[in-house]
C-alpha cells in the first residue's frame, strides 16, 4: 500500500500484466508511459519492455486503436492510450469492428484488448474540443465492448488489471481531470469487476448517481448534504456498459429519489440511462438530472465553470428534489 496517482496506479497494473505476458503491447502517442511516486520505483514501460512492444506513433488515433484490435485478432493482448484530442478519431473502428466482431464471426474473434480513452472536461480556457466531456455516451451505446470509467486510483488500477485480463474489448475511459488525485493503492495486483457499481455512501433519503470526472463533486456534495442531515446513497457507476441495474434499482426502491450527475451533455447523458432503467423498475419515485448543458464548453473560465456541474449545484438540486 502506498500513495499513488491515478496514472501510477494504472501503469503499475499494466506493468504487472506485461511482465506476465511477453507478447503484450502498449501503443501511445503523446503520453509517455512513465509515472513515478515517492518511495516507489519509476515506471517506464517503453524502457522496460522496449520499442517493439511499446511504441510512440504519429498522429493517427484511428491507427492506434486499429492496431490494438489487429494485435488482439492475432492473439496478443494489447492496450492503447488515446489522448483526449483523438478520442473520437478511433470511434468508427471501435463501434463498427471491435464491438461487432465477436458477434459477426459467431464468437470466433479474439480480442483481449483495452482502449484507454482519455477524456477531458477539466481545462477552462481550452474550449470546445479540449474541454469537452462527452464520449461516455458514445462509447456506452456500442454493443460488444465493455465501457468503464473509474473515478479513483484504486479502481483505476483494479479495473485496468481486470480489463487487460478480460477477453472482450474494453473501452476504459480516463477522465483526465482526475490526473492529480492521490490515494493509498495496494502494491500487489488485484482486479475490480467491470460490471458493478460502487455504493460510496449508504443512505435512505436520496440516491445520487455519478461517474468518472463528476464523482469528486458528487462526494463533496454528499458530505455537505449529510452534514445537513440528508441521508445520501452516493453511487459511482464505474461501468457504463454493462450497467449495474440491480444496484441502482435497489437503492431507489429504498430512497424513492434519484438524482443523476454528469459532466457529459444533458441529452442522452449516462444519467438518462440510469433514470430510464430505474423508472422502468421502480414506481412512484422522483427523478432529476444535473448535467452539462447541451452546449460545447466555451473557452472563458467564467462561462465554463458556471456550466460544469459542481457540488453546489448538486446540493441545491438534491434539496429541491427531496424537499
Amino acid at each position: 500500500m502506498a500513495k499513488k496517482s491515478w496514472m501510477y496506479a494504472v501503469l503499475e497494473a499494466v506493468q504487472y500484466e506485461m511482465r506476465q505476458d511477453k507478447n503484450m503491447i502498449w501503443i501511445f502517442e503523446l503520453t509517455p508511459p512513465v509515472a513515478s511516486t515517492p518511495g516507489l520505483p519509476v515506471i517506464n514501460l517503453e524502457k522496460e519492455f522496449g520499442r517493439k512492444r511499446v511504441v510512440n506513433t504519429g498522429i493517427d488515433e484511428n491507427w492506434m486503436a486499429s492496431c490494438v484490435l489487429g494485435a488482439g485478432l492475432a492473439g496478443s493482448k494489447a492496450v492503447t492510450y488515446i489522448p483526449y484530442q483523438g478520442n473520437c478519431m478511433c470511434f468508427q473502428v471501435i463501434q463498427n469492428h471491435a464491438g461487432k466482431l465477436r458477434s459477426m464471426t459467431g464468437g470466433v474473434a479474439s480480442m483481449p484488448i483495452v482502449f484507454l480513452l482519455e477524456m477531458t472536461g477539466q481545462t477552462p480556457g481550452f474550449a470546445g474540443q479540449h474541454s469537452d466531456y462527452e464520449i461516455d455516451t458514445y462509447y456506452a451505446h456500442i454493443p460488444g465492448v465493455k465501457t468503464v470509467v473509474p473515478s479513483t486510483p484504486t479502481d483505476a488500477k483494479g479495473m485496468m488489471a481486470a480489463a487487460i485480463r478480460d477477453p472482450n474489448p474494453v473501452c476504459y475511459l480516463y477522465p483526465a481531470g482526475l490526473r492529480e488525485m492521490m490515494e493509498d493503492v495496494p502494491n500487489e495486483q488485484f482486479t475490480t469487476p467491470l460490471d458493478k457499481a460502487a455504493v460510496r455512501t449508504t443512505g435512505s433519503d436520496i440516491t445520487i448517481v455519478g461517474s468518472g470526472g463528476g464523482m469528486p463533486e458528487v462526494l463533496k456534495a454528499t458530505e455537505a448534504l449529510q452534514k445537513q442531515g440528508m441521508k445520501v446513497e452516493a453511487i459511482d457507476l464505474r461501468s457504463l456498459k454493462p450497467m449495474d441495474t440491480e444496484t441502482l434499482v435497489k437503492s431507489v426502491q429504498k430512497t424513492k429519489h434519484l438524482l443523476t450527475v454528469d459532466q457529459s451533455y444533458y441529452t442522452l447523458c449516462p444519467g438518462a440511462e440510469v433514470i430510464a432503467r430505474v423508472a422502468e423498475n421502480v414506481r412512484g419515485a422522483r427523478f432529476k438530472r444535473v448535467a452539462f448543458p447541451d452546449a460545447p464548453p466555451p473557452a472563458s473560465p467564467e462561462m465554463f465553470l458556471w456550466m460544469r456541474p459542481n457540488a453546489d449545484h448538486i446540493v441545491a438540486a438534491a434539496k429541491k428534489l427531496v424537499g
Partner: protein
Amino acid sequence: MSELEHDEVSRETPESDQIASPSRRTFLKGVAGAGAAVSLISKGAWANGEIGFWAKDLPNDKLTEMFRTIVRIRWHERTMVDKMITDPKYRGYNHFYAGQEAVATGVCAALNNKGPFDQLDLVYSTHRPTGHAIAKGVDMKKMAAENDFRATGLNGGYAGEMHLSDKSCGFIGADGMIGPGHVIATGSAFAFRARGSKQVSVVFGGDGTYATPHFHAALNNAALLQLPFIYVLENNLYHQYAHYSYSCPMKDIADAARTYRIPGVVVDGQDVFQVYNAAKTAVDRARAGEGPTLIEAKTYRYYNHWGAPGAEAGQLGAFGYDPLAISSFRPEREVRAWMQRDPVDICRNTLINWGVLTRAQADEIEAAAKKEAIEAFAWADQQPFCKPEDGLKNVFVEGVVPARQFG
C-alpha cells in the same frame, strides 16, 4: 449429366468443355471461340513468369494444388449462381469473385495456412471474400452453410458472406467496410513483430480502397515500423459504379508505394504464377524483417458488383455481365477482352505447357471441384436454421445479453 451432351460452346480443348453447365453458357459466350487467343496469351504470361522465377521451381503437387484452388473457387461461384437462379428457398447473396481467382490463389499459395494459430499467416479479406476464403483453406461446405445463414455454418449463422472467418486456417475474415481492415491488419503485423514471430499479415482490398484515408495510414505505419505486412490491392478497375480513375490520379496504384519507401509491385492478376512470384518475394521480405510490400494485381470481375438470391439477368443485383449494367458503366468490349485472359485457362494451359498436368488430369481436377461445390451446397441445404434466441449470444465471450425487444 445431360449438360455434357448438349454443350454448345466450341473451344480449343474440347475435353474441358464437358464440365460447363448450361447455366454458365451465357457467361461463357465471352470466352467462346477465344481458345486460340487464350493459349497465346498464356504463353506470353508464361514468358513473363520467367522473370519472377519462384513458381517455376515449385514441385508439381504444389502447382497442381494451385490449379485445383482456382477451379474450386470458380465452381463455387458457378454453383452458387445456379442456386440463386434455380432454388427459390436459397437465401444467400454473394459478391462474386469469378475472374479474379488467380489473385487469391497465388497469394495464399505463398502463405502458411496450416498448423497452430500462432504460426499461421493471417489473411484479412473484404466484402468479396469467398475466393480468398477458399484459397486460404476454409471448408467449402461450412462456408456454403454460413452463406445461407445456417446454425452449423462456419460462423453459426452470425456472419453471412460479408463476415466469414475461420481462425483454424488464419482467415481472419471478411469485413463489409472499405478501408478499416487494412489498418487493422497492420495491427496483427505489429503483434508479430512484437513477439518475434515470423508470421505475416496480408490484407486484400480493391481499387476502391486507395481513396480511403486508411490507405495512407496502413502503408505509412507499416513502412515506418517495418511491419511484416502485405497489401494486395486487387485492381478490378471499378468500385461499385465508378471507374477507379474517379478516385485515383494514377494509372498504377502501386506507384503510391514510393511515398512510403516500400516496394510497389504491379502484377498480372490473371496469371496465378506471376501473382505467386510477387507474393513469395513479399512474404520473404516480410519474414526477414524487411517490411511491407504493396502488390497491385490488375484483374477483373466478370459478374456485377453483387448477386442477390432470386436475381434475374438484366437487373441490378443479378450476376452475369448483364446488358443494363454494362451500358451504364462497364463497356461490353472491356468485359469480353478480360474474359479472353481467363485465370482458369491461363493456369491450366501453363501447367499443360510445363508438363505438370495432362489435359485429362486437368479435366479430372475440374470435375472433382465441380462435384465438391455441388455437394457443399447440397450439404448446406440440409443444415438447421438458427434459433432466434441465440441472437443474444456472442456479444461478449461469456453469457448472453438480456432481450429488450419485449419491453
